[in-house]
């Protein structure tokens, strides 16, 4: 996107926080989108030729201004349309994940009952048995090394 697409007064969004590793827009769970809203106040001439000066559009930063490369900005309407689609896709996946993890939770509950019948305090005493679950959780972003803190 070049600065030619912007004009003074445009409502824009700083999209840097929403860019994925593949340089595509991505939905960020619980992100405060409003913190990235701003208004174009000046199109800077010369070098860097794509620079746009913006005024932040949230109360905390209302009077502060920053200059960004135009590629880091997107029109608010365009952003909201694209982001809304991404959010819908994310929520669909989130619902599928929840269903799956309900099933995993059920298996843990059943296993804990069985462990108690064996005279154990709880399932987490069965180190060998729970190892596959720990490995899976580690691979999915948790830190199981601190589970027994």
């Amino acid at each position, binding site marked *: 996107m070049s600065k030619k697409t912007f004009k003074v007064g445009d409502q824009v969004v700083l999209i840097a926080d929403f860019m*994925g*590793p593949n340089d595509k827009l*991505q*939905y960020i*769970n*619980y992100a405060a989108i409003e913190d990235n809203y701003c208004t174009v106040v000046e199109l800077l001439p010369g070098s860097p030729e794509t620079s746009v000066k913006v005024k932040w559009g949230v109360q905390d930063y209302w009077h502060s201004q920053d200059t960004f490369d135009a590629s880091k900005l997107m029109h608010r309407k365009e952003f909201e349309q694209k982001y809304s689609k*991404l959010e819908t*896709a*994310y929520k669909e*996946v*989130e*619902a*599928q*994940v*929840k269903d*799956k*993890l*309900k*099933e*995993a*939770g*059920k*298996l*843990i*509950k*059943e*296993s*804990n009952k*069985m*462990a108690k*019948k*064996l*005279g*154990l*305090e*709880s*399932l*987490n*005493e*069965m180190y*060998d*048995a*729970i*190892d*596959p*679950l720990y*490995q*899976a*959780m580690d*691979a*999915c*972003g*948790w*830190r*199981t090394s*601190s*589970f*027994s*803190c």
Partner: protein
Amino acid sequence: MKKSDAKPGTKVIASICFDDRYGGGEHLGPYKYNEYDENNLVGVIRSKEATPGHVWVKWIEGDFDQEEEEVDLKILMLESDRAQIEKDFKQVSKEIKDKMKEAAKIVNEAGKLARSVHSTLQEMYDATNPLVDAMDNNGWHSSSWNC
């Protein structure tokens, strides 16, 4: 064990239990199988008269503090049942292990789904609640998972 089984000379088993995971609050409890036979005791019932519901046991195997003590019959099991207890434990352990493998498979699948929208399970707080709650309710402490 049944009172009728508690004859002098009968071999019995029990385990040393702890009130916390740091080894505090040691007390005698029902026998628990474990691979290394840790904290397990084998004893012999003595003929010495005991209070109702109890017997005197002389410990002959294990890391015992007192060589002889009065023990509640509810805690004791017959040493002759030990092989069956071990067999049952291994059978149930296998079933639990299978269930945990299945749970792990599901978590991995859920992780793949999360990655498909450039997220991780840890970031999907609402979706992971059923798993976290299940673990909290079954012996884990999720409050320290991010230590």
